[in-house]
Protein backbone atom coordinates (compact mmCIF):
# COMPACT_ATOMS: atom_id res chain seq x y z
CA UNK A 1 0.00 0.00 0.00
CA UNK A 2 2.83 2.32 0.92
CA UNK A 3 4.52 1.44 -2.31
CA UNK A 4 1.42 2.39 -4.32
CA UNK A 5 1.07 5.69 -2.47
CA UNK A 6 4.72 6.46 -3.19
CA UNK A 7 4.21 5.69 -6.86
CA UNK A 8 1.18 8.02 -6.98
CA UNK A 9 3.12 10.80 -5.26
CA UNK A 10 5.99 10.30 -7.69
CA UNK A 11 3.64 10.51 -10.68
CA UNK A 12 2.17 13.76 -9.40
CA UNK A 13 5.58 15.30 -8.73
CA UNK A 14 7.25 14.18 -11.96
CA UNK A 15 7.58 16.45 -15.02
CA UNK A 16 4.29 16.09 -16.84
CA UNK A 17 2.62 15.48 -13.56
CA UNK A 18 0.90 18.81 -14.11
CA UNK A 19 -1.34 17.19 -16.69
CA UNK A 20 -2.15 14.42 -14.25
CA UNK A 21 -2.87 16.97 -11.52
CA UNK A 22 -5.11 18.91 -13.88
CA UNK A 23 -7.15 15.77 -14.49
CA UNK A 24 -7.21 14.66 -10.86
CA UNK A 25 -9.92 15.50 -8.39
CA UNK A 26 -10.17 14.49 -4.80
CA UNK A 27 -13.41 14.37 -2.90
CA UNK A 28 -13.78 13.96 0.83
CA UNK A 29 -17.08 13.55 2.62
CA UNK A 30 -18.48 13.20 6.08
CA UNK A 31 -21.77 11.45 6.46
CA UNK A 32 -24.31 10.45 8.97
CA UNK A 33 -26.94 7.77 8.36
CA UNK A 34 -30.08 6.80 10.11
CA UNK A 35 -29.99 3.01 9.70
CA UNK A 36 -32.81 0.55 10.07
CA UNK A 37 -32.04 -3.15 10.21
CA UNK A 38 -34.91 -5.60 9.87
CA UNK A 39 -34.68 -9.34 9.83
CA UNK A 40 -37.14 -12.17 9.94
CA UNK A 41 -35.50 -15.53 10.48
CA UNK A 42 -38.69 -17.33 11.28
CA UNK A 43 -39.20 -15.76 14.69
CA UNK A 44 -41.00 -12.62 13.63
CA UNK A 45 -39.56 -9.33 12.52
CA UNK A 46 -36.66 -8.09 14.59
CA UNK A 47 -35.89 -4.43 14.12
CA UNK A 48 -33.07 -2.25 15.31
CA UNK A 49 -32.10 1.24 14.29
CA UNK A 50 -29.56 3.89 15.06
CA UNK A 51 -27.23 6.45 13.66
CA UNK A 52 -23.88 5.65 12.15
CA UNK A 53 -21.18 8.08 11.21
CA UNK A 54 -18.64 7.68 8.52
CA UNK A 55 -16.67 9.12 5.75
CA UNK A 56 -16.13 8.75 2.09
CA UNK A 57 -13.16 9.57 -0.10
CA UNK A 58 -12.81 9.44 -3.86
CA UNK A 59 -10.17 10.06 -6.48
CA UNK A 60 -11.34 11.11 -9.92
CA UNK A 61 -9.13 10.63 -12.97
CA UNK A 62 -10.36 12.75 -15.83
CA UNK A 63 -14.02 12.99 -16.63
CA UNK A 64 -14.59 9.25 -16.90
CA UNK A 65 -13.15 7.36 -13.93
CA UNK A 66 -13.55 7.57 -10.21
CA UNK A 67 -12.41 5.23 -7.46
CA UNK A 68 -13.39 5.59 -3.87
CA UNK A 69 -13.78 4.11 -0.44
CA UNK A 70 -16.31 4.52 2.34
CA UNK A 71 -16.45 3.55 5.94
CA UNK A 72 -18.95 3.99 8.72
CA UNK A 73 -19.91 2.54 12.04
CA UNK A 74 -22.38 2.97 14.85
CA UNK A 75 -24.73 1.22 17.20
CA UNK A 76 -28.18 0.06 16.28
CA UNK A 77 -30.57 -0.11 19.19
CA UNK A 78 -33.13 -2.88 19.35
CA UNK A 79 -36.61 -1.61 18.58
CA UNK A 80 -38.45 -4.91 19.03
CA UNK A 81 -38.79 -7.46 21.71
CA UNK A 82 -36.36 -10.31 21.32
CA UNK A 83 -33.79 -8.43 19.33
CA UNK A 84 -30.39 -7.30 20.53
CA UNK A 85 -28.46 -4.10 20.14
CA UNK A 86 -26.00 -4.34 17.27
CA UNK A 87 -22.74 -2.73 16.47
CA UNK A 88 -22.82 -1.97 12.83
CA UNK A 89 -19.70 -1.30 10.77
CA UNK A 90 -19.23 -1.15 7.07
CA UNK A 91 -16.60 -0.38 4.46
CA UNK A 92 -16.30 -0.60 0.75
CA UNK A 93 -14.13 0.09 -2.26
CA UNK A 94 -15.71 1.05 -5.52
CA UNK A 95 -14.89 2.11 -9.06
CA UNK A 96 -17.20 4.14 -11.26
CA UNK A 97 -16.98 4.73 -14.97
CA UNK A 98 -19.01 7.59 -16.37
CA UNK A 99 -20.58 6.16 -19.52
CA UNK A 100 -22.37 9.48 -19.98
CA UNK A 101 -22.04 12.73 -18.11
CA UNK A 102 -25.07 11.80 -16.04
CA UNK A 103 -24.64 8.02 -15.83
CA UNK A 104 -21.98 6.09 -13.92
CA UNK A 105 -21.49 2.34 -14.05
CA UNK A 106 -20.34 1.12 -10.65
CA UNK A 107 -18.64 -1.92 -9.23
CA UNK A 108 -18.07 -2.22 -5.51
CA UNK A 109 -16.72 -4.67 -3.00
CA UNK A 110 -18.32 -4.05 0.35
CA UNK A 111 -18.11 -5.53 3.79
CA UNK A 112 -20.36 -4.91 6.74
CA UNK A 113 -20.54 -6.55 10.11
CA UNK A 114 -23.32 -6.89 12.63
CA UNK A 115 -21.90 -7.58 16.04
CA UNK A 116 -23.52 -8.55 19.26
CA UNK A 117 -21.60 -9.24 22.48
CA UNK A 118 -21.58 -12.92 21.59
CA UNK A 119 -21.25 -13.08 17.81
CA UNK A 120 -20.11 -11.24 14.76
CA UNK A 121 -21.79 -11.71 11.43
CA UNK A 122 -19.75 -10.63 8.40
CA UNK A 123 -21.34 -9.81 5.10
CA UNK A 124 -19.14 -9.56 2.02
CA UNK A 125 -20.73 -8.36 -1.20
CA UNK A 126 -19.62 -7.79 -4.76
CA UNK A 127 -21.95 -5.20 -6.24
CA UNK A 128 -22.56 -4.02 -9.79
CA UNK A 129 -24.93 -1.35 -10.86
CA UNK A 130 -25.53 2.09 -12.25
CA UNK A 131 -26.11 5.51 -10.78
CA UNK A 132 -27.84 8.34 -12.62
CA UNK A 133 -27.53 12.01 -11.67
CA UNK A 134 -29.96 14.24 -13.52
CA UNK A 135 -28.99 17.91 -13.27
CA UNK A 136 -31.57 20.49 -12.28
CA UNK A 137 -31.20 24.28 -12.32
CA UNK A 138 -27.92 24.26 -14.28
CA UNK A 139 -26.43 21.62 -11.99
CA UNK A 140 -27.14 23.33 -8.70
CA UNK A 141 -29.27 20.31 -7.82
CA UNK A 142 -29.15 16.74 -9.02
CA UNK A 143 -31.76 14.04 -8.73
CA UNK A 144 -29.96 10.79 -7.86
CA UNK A 145 -31.07 7.25 -8.61
CA UNK A 146 -29.05 4.07 -8.11
CA UNK A 147 -29.73 0.41 -8.65
CA UNK A 148 -27.27 -2.37 -7.78
CA UNK A 149 -27.26 -6.13 -7.89
CA UNK A 150 -25.12 -8.17 -5.52
CA UNK A 151 -24.10 -11.17 -7.62
CA UNK A 152 -21.27 -12.06 -5.27
CA UNK A 153 -22.16 -12.34 -1.65
CA UNK A 154 -21.21 -14.37 1.35
CA UNK A 155 -22.61 -14.18 4.85
CA UNK A 156 -20.89 -15.85 7.73
CA UNK A 157 -23.04 -18.60 9.21
CA UNK A 158 -25.65 -18.38 6.49
CA UNK A 159 -26.25 -19.63 3.02
CA UNK A 160 -25.85 -17.27 0.11
CA UNK A 161 -29.05 -15.25 -0.44
CA UNK A 162 -30.92 -16.11 -3.58
CA UNK A 163 -31.93 -12.48 -4.08
CA UNK A 164 -29.81 -9.51 -3.08
CA UNK A 165 -29.98 -6.02 -4.45
CA UNK A 166 -29.74 -2.41 -3.47
CA UNK A 167 -31.34 0.82 -4.60
CA UNK A 168 -31.05 4.45 -3.69
CA UNK A 169 -32.79 7.73 -4.48
CA UNK A 170 -31.92 11.20 -3.38
CA UNK A 171 -31.18 14.82 -4.03
CA UNK A 172 -27.80 16.49 -4.23
CA UNK A 173 -27.08 20.20 -3.91
CA UNK A 174 -23.83 21.66 -5.26
CA UNK A 175 -22.16 25.02 -4.91
CA UNK A 176 -18.70 25.04 -6.40
CA UNK A 177 -16.56 22.48 -4.62
CA UNK A 178 -19.08 21.88 -1.83
CA UNK A 179 -22.01 19.56 -2.14
CA UNK A 180 -24.58 18.01 0.13
CA UNK A 181 -26.69 14.92 -0.42
CA UNK A 182 -29.76 13.46 1.15
CA UNK A 183 -30.16 9.86 0.00
CA UNK A 184 -32.44 7.05 0.92
CA UNK A 185 -30.84 3.64 0.25
CA UNK A 186 -32.19 0.16 0.62
CA UNK A 187 -30.43 -3.22 0.68
CA UNK A 188 -32.57 -6.32 0.56
CA UNK A 189 -31.49 -9.90 1.05
CA UNK A 190 -33.84 -12.88 0.60
CA UNK A 191 -32.40 -16.24 1.60
CA UNK A 192 -33.45 -19.63 0.32
CA UNK A 193 -35.83 -21.63 2.41
CA UNK A 194 -33.96 -23.70 4.92
CA UNK A 195 -35.60 -25.99 7.42
CA UNK A 196 -38.98 -24.69 6.43
CA UNK A 197 -37.97 -21.13 7.22
CA UNK A 198 -37.42 -18.37 4.72
CA UNK A 199 -35.08 -15.66 6.02
CA UNK A 200 -35.51 -12.06 4.95
CA UNK A 201 -33.15 -9.27 5.90
CA UNK A 202 -33.10 -5.62 5.00
CA UNK A 203 -31.04 -2.53 5.68
CA UNK A 204 -32.23 0.96 4.93
CA UNK A 205 -30.18 4.13 5.21
CA UNK A 206 -31.25 7.74 5.26
CA UNK A 207 -27.91 9.41 4.71
CA UNK A 208 -26.91 13.02 4.87
CA UNK A 209 -23.52 13.64 3.32
CA UNK A 210 -21.42 16.80 3.11
CA UNK A 211 -18.59 16.72 0.55
CA UNK A 212 -15.73 18.94 -0.47
CA UNK A 213 -14.02 18.51 -3.82
CA UNK A 214 -10.53 19.51 -4.86
CA UNK A 215 -9.97 19.71 -8.60
CA UNK A 216 -12.35 20.05 -11.48
CA UNK A 217 -15.89 18.80 -11.35
CA UNK A 218 -16.83 15.45 -12.81
CA UNK A 219 -18.90 15.09 -15.88
CA UNK A 220 -21.80 16.59 -14.03
CA UNK A 221 -22.29 19.69 -16.17
CA UNK A 222 -22.55 22.28 -13.43
CA UNK A 223 -19.97 24.51 -15.08
CA UNK A 224 -19.70 23.01 -18.54
CA UNK A 225 -21.33 24.46 -21.65
CA UNK A 226 -24.73 22.92 -22.07
CA UNK A 227 -26.23 21.84 -25.29
CA UNK A 228 -29.89 21.81 -26.08
CA UNK A 229 -32.43 23.20 -28.38
CA UNK A 230 -33.29 26.86 -28.01
Amino acid at each position, binding site marked *: MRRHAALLALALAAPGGGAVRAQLRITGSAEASQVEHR*VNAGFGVEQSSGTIFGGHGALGFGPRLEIGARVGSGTLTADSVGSDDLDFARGGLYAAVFAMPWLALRAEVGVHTLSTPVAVQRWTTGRMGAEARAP*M*LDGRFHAIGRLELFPLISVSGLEKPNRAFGAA*AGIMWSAGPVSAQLVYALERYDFPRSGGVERHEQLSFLTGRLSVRLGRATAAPANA*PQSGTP
Partner: protein
Amino acid sequence: MKRIIRWAALLLVLVPLARSLTAQSNTAEMLQRAIRLYEEVEIEQSLVILRQIISPQSPYVVSPEQRVEAYKYLGAALALQAGPAKRDSAITFFRAALERDPFTDLDPRTFSPIQVQVFSTARARTFAVGLKPSATDTLDPRTERLRLRALTSHRGQLRLELRSGGVVRRVIYEGANEGLREIDWDALLADGRLVPPGRYEIVALGASHLITRPDTLRDSTRVFVELRHLHDPLADTLAVLGGADLLPEQHPASAAATDLLKGVAAAGGAILMQTVLSSGELGRSSTGSVVAATGVGVGVIAFFARQRNRTIPVNIAENARRQTAREQRNTAIVAGNAEILRETRLIVLPAAGVGP
Protein backbone atom coordinates in the same frame (compact mmCIF):
# COMPACT_ATOMS: atom_id res chain seq x y z
CA MET B 1 -17.95 19.02 -101.33
CA LYS B 2 -17.60 20.39 -97.83
CA ARG B 3 -13.85 20.63 -98.25
CA ILE B 4 -14.26 22.68 -101.45
CA ILE B 5 -16.64 25.08 -99.70
CA ARG B 6 -14.17 25.45 -96.83
CA TRP B 7 -11.29 26.29 -99.22
CA ALA B 8 -13.48 28.77 -101.11
CA ALA B 9 -14.40 30.55 -97.87
CA LEU B 10 -10.73 30.71 -96.87
CA LEU B 11 -9.85 32.26 -100.24
CA LEU B 12 -12.62 34.84 -99.86
CA VAL B 13 -11.08 35.95 -96.56
CA LEU B 14 -7.44 35.82 -97.60
CA VAL B 15 -7.64 37.59 -100.97
CA PRO B 16 -8.89 41.02 -99.65
CA LEU B 17 -6.43 40.75 -96.76
CA ALA B 18 -3.56 40.17 -99.17
CA ARG B 19 -4.67 43.14 -101.28
CA SER B 20 -4.77 45.40 -98.21
CA LEU B 21 -1.30 44.33 -97.13
CA THR B 22 0.03 44.89 -100.65
CA ALA B 23 -1.54 48.38 -100.76
CA GLN B 24 0.02 49.37 -97.43
CA SER B 25 3.28 47.89 -98.58
CA ASN B 26 3.12 50.00 -101.73
CA THR B 27 2.53 53.15 -99.68
CA ALA B 28 5.52 52.27 -97.46
CA GLU B 29 7.69 51.70 -100.51
CA MET B 30 6.54 54.97 -102.05
CA LEU B 31 7.26 56.80 -98.81
CA GLN B 32 10.71 55.26 -98.56
CA ARG B 33 11.44 56.18 -102.17
CA ALA B 34 10.25 59.76 -101.60
CA ILE B 35 12.43 60.13 -98.50
CA ARG B 36 15.42 58.68 -100.33
CA LEU B 37 14.90 61.15 -103.21
CA TYR B 38 14.56 63.98 -100.67
CA GLU B 39 17.82 62.95 -99.06
CA GLU B 40 19.44 62.86 -102.52
CA VAL B 41 18.09 66.40 -103.00
CA GLU B 42 15.80 65.23 -105.82
CA ILE B 43 13.16 67.48 -104.29
CA GLU B 44 10.76 67.74 -107.22
CA GLN B 45 10.63 64.00 -107.78
CA SER B 46 10.19 63.50 -104.04
CA LEU B 47 7.33 66.03 -103.95
CA VAL B 48 5.54 64.22 -106.76
CA ILE B 49 5.56 60.95 -104.88
CA LEU B 50 4.61 62.57 -101.56
CA ARG B 51 1.65 64.33 -103.22
CA GLN B 52 0.56 61.00 -104.71
CA ILE B 53 0.60 59.49 -101.22
CA ILE B 54 -1.62 62.16 -99.65
CA SER B 55 -3.89 62.47 -102.69
CA PRO B 56 -7.48 61.32 -102.20
CA GLN B 57 -7.02 59.63 -105.58
CA SER B 58 -4.30 57.36 -104.23
CA PRO B 59 -5.24 53.75 -104.96
CA TYR B 60 -3.37 52.57 -101.90
CA VAL B 61 -4.28 52.44 -98.24
CA VAL B 62 -2.43 55.12 -96.27
CA SER B 63 -2.10 54.65 -92.54
CA PRO B 64 -2.34 57.71 -90.24
CA GLU B 65 1.36 57.38 -89.43
CA GLN B 66 2.28 57.24 -93.12
CA ARG B 67 0.12 60.27 -93.82
CA VAL B 68 1.79 62.27 -91.00
CA GLU B 69 5.22 61.26 -92.32
CA ALA B 70 4.23 62.33 -95.83
CA TYR B 71 2.99 65.73 -94.59
CA LYS B 72 6.20 66.23 -92.63
CA TYR B 73 8.44 65.56 -95.63
CA LEU B 74 6.21 67.66 -97.87
CA GLY B 75 6.67 70.55 -95.46
CA ALA B 76 10.39 69.89 -95.17
CA ALA B 77 10.81 69.71 -98.95
CA LEU B 78 8.82 72.87 -99.60
CA ALA B 79 10.67 74.73 -96.82
CA LEU B 80 13.86 74.25 -98.82
CA GLN B 81 12.37 75.98 -101.85
CA ALA B 82 12.52 79.69 -102.31
CA GLY B 83 9.56 82.04 -102.21
CA PRO B 84 6.92 82.94 -99.66
CA ALA B 85 4.30 80.77 -101.38
CA LYS B 86 6.48 77.68 -100.92
CA ARG B 87 7.12 78.69 -97.30
CA ASP B 88 3.39 79.09 -96.67
CA SER B 89 2.74 75.70 -98.25
CA ALA B 90 5.45 74.19 -96.06
CA ILE B 91 3.79 75.67 -92.98
CA THR B 92 0.42 74.29 -94.11
CA PHE B 93 1.80 70.75 -94.49
CA PHE B 94 3.66 70.99 -91.18
CA ARG B 95 0.42 72.07 -89.50
CA ALA B 96 -1.42 69.18 -91.14
CA ALA B 97 1.17 66.82 -89.66
CA LEU B 98 0.97 68.47 -86.21
CA GLU B 99 -2.81 68.39 -86.15
CA ARG B 100 -2.77 64.68 -86.86
CA ASP B 101 0.08 63.91 -84.50
CA PRO B 102 1.09 66.60 -82.03
CA PHE B 103 4.23 64.58 -81.23
CA THR B 104 5.55 65.27 -84.76
CA ASP B 105 8.97 66.91 -84.57
CA LEU B 106 11.96 67.78 -86.76
CA ASP B 107 15.31 66.53 -85.56
CA PRO B 108 17.77 69.47 -85.82
CA ARG B 109 20.56 67.01 -86.62
CA THR B 110 18.70 65.80 -89.73
CA PHE B 111 16.87 68.92 -90.88
CA SER B 112 18.30 72.33 -91.68
CA PRO B 113 17.79 75.38 -89.46
CA ILE B 114 15.49 76.96 -92.04
CA GLN B 115 13.26 73.87 -92.02
CA VAL B 116 13.24 73.83 -88.22
CA GLN B 117 12.39 77.51 -88.18
CA VAL B 118 9.45 77.01 -90.61
CA PHE B 119 8.28 74.06 -88.49
CA SER B 120 8.39 76.29 -85.39
CA THR B 121 6.21 78.80 -87.19
CA ALA B 122 3.74 76.02 -88.00
CA ARG B 123 3.76 75.02 -84.34
CA ALA B 124 3.07 78.55 -83.24
CA ARG B 125 0.02 78.68 -85.51
CA THR B 126 -1.28 75.26 -84.46
CA PHE B 127 -2.46 74.35 -81.02
CA ALA B 128 -2.65 70.62 -80.39
CA VAL B 129 -2.44 68.51 -77.29
CA GLY B 130 -0.85 65.06 -77.27
CA LEU B 131 -0.81 62.35 -74.62
CA LYS B 132 0.91 58.96 -74.38
CA PRO B 133 1.21 56.70 -71.36
CA SER B 134 4.61 55.10 -70.88
CA ALA B 135 5.21 51.57 -72.00
CA THR B 136 5.50 50.38 -68.40
CA ASP B 137 2.94 47.66 -67.83
CA THR B 138 3.57 46.69 -64.22
CA LEU B 139 4.77 48.94 -61.47
CA ASP B 140 5.14 49.00 -57.72
CA PRO B 141 3.33 52.14 -56.53
CA ARG B 142 5.51 52.28 -53.43
CA THR B 143 8.66 52.94 -55.43
CA GLU B 144 7.65 53.49 -59.04
CA ARG B 145 5.49 55.96 -60.92
CA LEU B 146 3.41 55.72 -64.07
CA ARG B 147 5.09 58.05 -66.55
CA LEU B 148 2.77 60.01 -68.84
CA ARG B 149 4.08 62.00 -71.79
CA ALA B 150 1.94 65.03 -72.53
CA LEU B 151 2.57 67.72 -75.06
CA THR B 152 1.27 71.07 -76.20
CA SER B 153 2.41 72.16 -79.62
CA HIS B 154 3.18 75.62 -78.22
CA ARG B 155 2.94 77.56 -74.98
CA GLY B 156 -0.35 77.05 -73.25
CA GLN B 157 -2.16 75.74 -70.21
CA LEU B 158 -2.15 71.99 -69.72
CA ARG B 159 -4.36 69.96 -67.41
CA LEU B 160 -4.25 66.20 -67.01
CA GLU B 161 -7.22 64.47 -65.41
CA LEU B 162 -7.93 60.89 -64.39
CA ARG B 163 -11.58 60.13 -64.96
CA SER B 164 -13.76 57.17 -64.21
CA GLY B 165 -17.40 56.99 -65.14
CA GLY B 166 -17.21 60.61 -66.26
CA VAL B 167 -16.08 61.74 -62.81
CA VAL B 168 -12.70 63.38 -62.25
CA ARG B 169 -10.88 61.20 -59.70
CA ARG B 170 -7.59 63.04 -59.73
CA VAL B 171 -6.02 66.05 -61.41
CA ILE B 172 -2.62 64.63 -62.26
CA TYR B 173 -1.12 67.87 -63.57
CA GLU B 174 -2.19 71.44 -64.10
CA GLY B 175 0.05 74.28 -65.21
CA ALA B 176 1.70 76.12 -68.03
CA ASN B 177 3.45 74.02 -70.63
CA GLU B 178 5.34 74.23 -73.86
CA GLY B 179 6.34 71.19 -75.83
CA LEU B 180 6.82 67.78 -74.32
CA ARG B 181 6.31 67.19 -70.58
CA GLU B 182 6.87 63.94 -68.77
CA ILE B 183 4.55 63.61 -65.78
CA ASP B 184 4.96 60.92 -63.14
CA TRP B 185 1.70 59.78 -61.56
CA ASP B 186 1.91 58.05 -58.18
CA ALA B 187 -1.19 55.92 -58.96
CA LEU B 188 -3.09 57.53 -56.09
CA LEU B 189 -6.48 59.17 -56.15
CA ALA B 190 -7.17 62.62 -54.80
CA ASP B 191 -7.92 61.17 -51.36
CA GLY B 192 -4.56 59.41 -51.20
CA ARG B 193 -5.85 55.90 -51.79
CA LEU B 194 -4.35 53.60 -54.37
CA VAL B 195 -6.39 53.78 -57.53
CA PRO B 196 -8.88 50.87 -57.50
CA PRO B 197 -8.83 48.40 -60.36
CA GLY B 198 -10.96 49.34 -63.35
CA ARG B 199 -11.03 51.18 -66.62
CA TYR B 200 -10.02 54.83 -66.60
CA GLU B 201 -9.79 57.71 -68.97
CA ILE B 202 -6.76 59.98 -68.85
CA VAL B 203 -7.68 63.29 -70.41
CA ALA B 204 -5.30 66.05 -71.49
CA LEU B 205 -6.94 69.47 -71.79
CA GLY B 206 -5.03 72.36 -73.31
CA ALA B 207 -5.62 76.08 -73.87
CA SER B 208 -3.28 78.13 -76.06
CA HIS B 209 -1.49 81.15 -74.63
CA LEU B 210 -0.59 82.37 -78.10
CA ILE B 211 -3.85 82.13 -80.00
CA THR B 212 -6.42 83.88 -77.88
CA ARG B 213 -8.40 85.86 -80.45
CA PRO B 214 -11.24 85.79 -81.19
CA ASP B 215 -11.35 83.00 -78.59
CA THR B 216 -8.70 81.03 -76.82
CA LEU B 217 -7.82 78.04 -78.93
CA ARG B 218 -8.35 74.82 -77.03
CA ASP B 219 -7.62 71.17 -77.69
CA SER B 220 -7.98 67.93 -75.84
CA THR B 221 -7.14 64.29 -76.20
CA ARG B 222 -7.59 61.18 -74.12
CA VAL B 223 -6.30 57.69 -73.68
CA PHE B 224 -8.04 54.77 -72.02
CA VAL B 225 -6.24 52.47 -69.67
CA GLU B 226 -7.23 49.46 -67.67
CA LEU B 227 -5.66 49.27 -64.23
CA ARG B 228 -5.43 45.99 -62.36
CA HIS B 229 -4.09 45.11 -58.94
CA LEU B 230 -1.58 42.32 -58.60
CA HIS B 231 -1.12 40.80 -55.14
CA ASP B 232 -1.21 37.50 -53.30
CA PRO B 233 -4.68 36.08 -52.68
CA LEU B 234 -6.48 37.63 -49.73
CA ALA B 235 -7.77 35.48 -46.89
CA ASP B 236 -11.50 35.40 -46.24
CA THR B 237 -12.69 36.68 -42.90
CA LEU B 238 -14.79 34.37 -40.76
CA ALA B 239 -18.49 34.67 -41.35
CA VAL B 240 -20.84 35.96 -38.69
CA LEU B 241 -21.53 33.15 -36.25
CA GLY B 242 -24.90 31.61 -36.96
CA GLY B 243 -27.27 29.46 -34.99
CA ALA B 244 -25.24 26.33 -35.62
CA ASP B 245 -22.08 27.95 -34.26
CA LEU B 246 -23.54 29.23 -31.01
CA LEU B 247 -24.95 27.50 -27.98
CA PRO B 248 -28.51 28.19 -26.90
CA GLU B 249 -28.56 30.97 -24.34
CA GLN B 250 -31.97 30.11 -22.94
CA HIS B 251 -33.45 26.90 -21.69
CA PRO B 252 -36.49 25.76 -23.63
CA ALA B 253 -39.86 26.53 -22.13
CA SER B 254 -40.17 22.87 -21.18
CA ALA B 255 -37.04 23.01 -18.97
CA ALA B 256 -39.04 24.05 -15.89
CA ALA B 257 -41.37 21.11 -16.25
CA THR B 258 -38.40 18.80 -16.86
CA ASP B 259 -36.70 19.94 -13.66
CA LEU B 260 -39.94 19.42 -11.76
CA LEU B 261 -40.21 15.93 -13.20
CA LYS B 262 -36.65 15.11 -12.11
CA GLY B 263 -37.44 16.09 -8.54
CA VAL B 264 -40.67 14.10 -8.64
CA ALA B 265 -38.77 11.16 -10.12
CA ALA B 266 -36.34 11.17 -7.18
CA ALA B 267 -39.32 11.29 -4.83
CA GLY B 268 -41.03 8.49 -6.73
CA GLY B 269 -37.88 6.39 -6.53
CA ALA B 270 -37.78 6.76 -2.76
CA ILE B 271 -41.45 5.86 -2.45
CA LEU B 272 -41.00 2.93 -4.82
CA MET B 273 -38.16 1.58 -2.70
CA GLN B 274 -40.15 2.03 0.45
CA THR B 275 -43.25 0.30 -0.89
CA VAL B 276 -42.35 -2.05 -3.71
CA LEU B 277 -38.67 -2.91 -3.44
CA SER B 278 -38.62 -3.39 0.30
CA SER B 279 -39.63 -6.76 1.63
CA GLY B 280 -43.29 -7.08 2.46
CA GLU B 281 -42.38 -9.63 5.10
CA LEU B 282 -40.42 -7.04 7.07
CA GLY B 283 -42.83 -4.12 7.16
CA ARG B 284 -42.44 -0.65 5.76
CA SER B 285 -39.77 1.84 6.67
CA SER B 286 -40.84 5.47 6.69
CA THR B 287 -37.47 7.18 6.27
CA GLY B 288 -37.78 7.20 2.49
CA SER B 289 -40.58 9.75 2.84
CA VAL B 290 -38.04 12.34 3.93
CA VAL B 291 -36.22 12.01 0.61
CA ALA B 292 -39.53 11.91 -1.27
CA ALA B 293 -40.62 15.18 0.31
CA THR B 294 -37.23 16.73 -0.39
CA GLY B 295 -37.37 15.60 -4.03
CA VAL B 296 -40.78 17.15 -4.56
CA GLY B 297 -39.72 20.33 -2.77
CA VAL B 298 -36.56 20.73 -4.85
CA GLY B 299 -38.53 19.97 -8.02
CA VAL B 300 -41.05 22.69 -7.24
CA ILE B 301 -38.29 25.19 -6.39
CA ALA B 302 -36.50 24.33 -9.63
CA PHE B 303 -39.74 24.69 -11.57
CA PHE B 304 -40.42 28.22 -10.39
CA ALA B 305 -36.78 29.29 -10.49
CA ARG B 306 -36.46 28.04 -14.04
CA GLN B 307 -39.67 29.74 -15.11
CA ARG B 308 -38.41 33.03 -13.70
CA ASN B 309 -35.00 32.80 -15.32
CA ARG B 310 -34.37 30.65 -18.36
CA THR B 311 -30.96 32.05 -19.29
CA ILE B 312 -27.93 29.75 -19.41
CA PRO B 313 -25.06 31.87 -18.07
CA VAL B 314 -22.42 29.28 -18.99
CA ASN B 315 -23.56 29.25 -22.60
CA ILE B 316 -23.78 33.04 -22.71
CA ALA B 317 -20.18 33.24 -21.52
CA GLU B 318 -19.09 30.57 -24.01
CA ASN B 319 -20.85 32.37 -26.88
CA ALA B 320 -19.18 35.62 -25.88
CA ARG B 321 -15.83 33.81 -25.89
CA ARG B 322 -16.52 32.44 -29.39
CA GLN B 323 -17.57 35.88 -30.66
CA THR B 324 -14.42 37.42 -29.22
CA ALA B 325 -12.28 34.68 -30.76
CA ARG B 326 -13.93 35.30 -34.13
CA GLU B 327 -13.37 39.04 -33.88
CA GLN B 328 -9.74 38.53 -32.93
CA ARG B 329 -9.25 36.11 -35.81
CA ASN B 330 -10.90 38.51 -38.23
CA THR B 331 -8.75 41.37 -36.97
CA ALA B 332 -5.69 39.24 -37.65
CA ILE B 333 -7.00 38.33 -41.12
CA VAL B 334 -7.73 41.97 -41.94
CA ALA B 335 -4.25 42.94 -40.76
CA GLY B 336 -2.74 40.16 -42.88
CA ASN B 337 -4.74 41.27 -45.91
CA ALA B 338 -3.68 44.88 -45.34
CA GLU B 339 -0.08 43.70 -45.34
CA ILE B 340 -0.67 41.89 -48.63
CA LEU B 341 -2.42 44.93 -50.11
CA ARG B 342 0.47 47.16 -49.09
CA GLU B 343 2.57 45.20 -51.56
CA THR B 344 0.06 45.57 -54.39
CA ARG B 345 1.54 46.07 -57.82
CA LEU B 346 -0.34 47.90 -60.52
CA ILE B 347 -0.80 46.50 -64.01
CA VAL B 348 -1.46 49.10 -66.70
CA LEU B 349 -3.06 47.90 -69.91
CA PRO B 350 -4.29 49.87 -72.89
CA ALA B 351 -8.07 49.86 -73.21
CA ALA B 352 -10.54 50.71 -75.95
CA GLY B 353 -12.85 52.73 -73.73
CA VAL B 354 -14.19 53.03 -70.25
CA GLY B 355 -16.78 50.33 -70.76
CA PRO B 356 -16.41 46.65 -71.45
